[in-house]
């Protein structure tokens, strides 16, 4: 069992990166996630594990540094907050198009534009449906505790390398700024160059050795016929993720007559709302998608047969509600409740919404 600490979510991301044998972090400061790079710089992992940490000139540069290092088989990551992720969108599309594994952390803040620095979940669509150009998907993990901030760093990397695809941790200022107890992971040594060669030698650009043909990392294919084949291959990969990698948590769903669906920090708030509502005699459960892509369609479809209605609670204007509606079908009402622009809903508000939108309605 690892070390028990009291830490902020953002600090834990940094600590987990060092401990999981990450080779490099490239980033640019933006509130509310600057503690990630600050913690790394303070920890000086280049002395301890050899991990590189670089403050880049912009988010644009950071994501392309990621591209370069990932293309050479290194385990690398960046982090930012909403406006910075928009700047990275170009690079994320290239990473997906060139099939490069890496980890991107988005500690969301309220938008659009410069918006606010307060917590938000308004980048759900950007993360799960695109954000950059072209048909691509990211593996999106939504932690709802500081412990999961720790756990999902290595999980994100594992999935990224398994599918040669960027993975994202989609969190927000609540989880990033909150301190909780966390059991830190044990150290995994960074891969040596020979080990990287053995594992990923079939595609990385590590210098063309005599025995092989040259490797080219690119997303470019001017022949549309071949580009279509590339796209079909990507779609098959995404379908495989939907088959094998869905993660979710069900809380008090066994006897539930109503269901709340919420992810990340909203799920924490809704957990309290479930307790409050149950104390009032309302039989409500909570389904928390942990992977936002692939989305837990099947458990939602199954619960749609059990409950009288669903309430989707998110800190945006109703984004995930579309996915829930698609999964649930039309036999029961699927309602939305949320707050916007950096306002975090309280458990009391959620219970009220449940009563007004589902039970009363």
């Amino acid at each position: 069992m690892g070390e028990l600490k009291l830490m902020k979510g953002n600090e834990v991301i940094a600590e987990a990166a060092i401990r999981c044998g990450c080779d490099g972090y490239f980033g640019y400061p933006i509130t509310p996630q600057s503690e990630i790079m600050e913690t790394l710089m303070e920890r000086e992992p280049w002395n301890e594990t050899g991990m590189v940490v670089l403050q880049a000139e912009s988010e644009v540069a950071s994501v392309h540094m990621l591209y370069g290092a990932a293309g050479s088989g290194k385990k690398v990551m960046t982090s930012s907050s909403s406006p910075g992720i928009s700047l990275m969108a170009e690079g994320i599309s290239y990473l997906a198009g060139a099939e490069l594994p890496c980890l991107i952390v988005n500690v969301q803040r309220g938008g659009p534009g410069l918006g606010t620095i307060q917590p938000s979940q308004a980048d759900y669509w950007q993360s799960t449906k695109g954000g950059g150009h072209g048909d691509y998907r990211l593996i999106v993990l939504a932690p709802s505790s500081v412990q999961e901030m720790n756990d999902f760093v290595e999980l994100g990397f594992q999935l990224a390398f398994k599918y040669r695809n960027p993975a994202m941790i989609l969190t927000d200022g609540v989880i990033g700024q909150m301190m909780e107890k966390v059991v830190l992971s044990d150290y995994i040594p960074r891969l040596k160059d020979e080990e990287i060669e053995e594992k990923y030698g079939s595609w990385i650009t590590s210098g063309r050795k005599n025995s092989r043909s040259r490797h080219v990392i690119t997303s470019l294919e001017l022949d549309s016929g071949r580009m279509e084949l590339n796209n079909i291959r990507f779609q098959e990969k995404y379908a495989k993720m939907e088959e094998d990698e869905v993660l979710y948590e069900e809380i008090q769903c066994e006897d539930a007559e109503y269901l709340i669906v919420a992810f990340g920090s909203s799920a924490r708030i809704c957990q309290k709302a479930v307790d409050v509502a149950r104390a009032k005699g309302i039989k409500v459960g909570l389904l928390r998608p942990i992977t936002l892509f692939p989305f837990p369609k099947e458990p939602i479809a199954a619960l749609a047969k059990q409950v009288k209605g669903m309430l989707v609670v998110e800190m945006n204007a109703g984004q995930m509600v579309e996915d829930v509606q698609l999964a649930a079908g039309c036999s029961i009402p699927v309602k939305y409740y949320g707050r916007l622009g950096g306002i975090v809903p309280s458990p009391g508000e959620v219970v009220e919404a449940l009563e007004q939108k589902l039970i009363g309605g």
Partner: protein
Amino acid sequence: MTEELIIAGFGGQGVLSMGKILAYSGVMADQEVAWFPSYGPEMRGGTANVTVILSESRISSPVLNEYDTAIILNQQSMDKFEHAVKPGGVLIYDPNGIVHPPKRTDINIYKIEGTLIAAELGNVKTFNMVVLGAYLKAKPVVQIESVKKGLEKSLPARHHKLIPMNLEAIEKGYQGLELVHAAV
């Protein structure tokens, strides 16, 4: 047992670090803890508040709309959080800077002359520890021994020489708590 607490005041009063020491104390006492601050520019000179939750079981929401206890250290925070205390709950305030004292009758209201006591101690920076002491008198959620361990854990080693002074401040605050109104 779960204690849901908000500490609210000005940036610079040591609100966040007081919450942090309490959270560390909770960890030392093997409790589940959550510490969730307001963050950003509002911290600089403006209002600052932090939610601290200590519990025997898994903590759900770090964001709350009502609290077992509110520690209120300026008027803006009084305006914002007096009504967020659960009926039968506890409100502790420092009268220094409070123009409109709390009016609720369904909660237990205490005052602590934290500013005065800290000044008497000769170090205004101990203000938050005085208030922490008062809180622990009203709500003995953790033992002083755990607080001592919490201080050791949360302060960098170069500041450990300040621990005795902080413990003294906690003690003064513990003794200085005055009941203003008992819940009816």
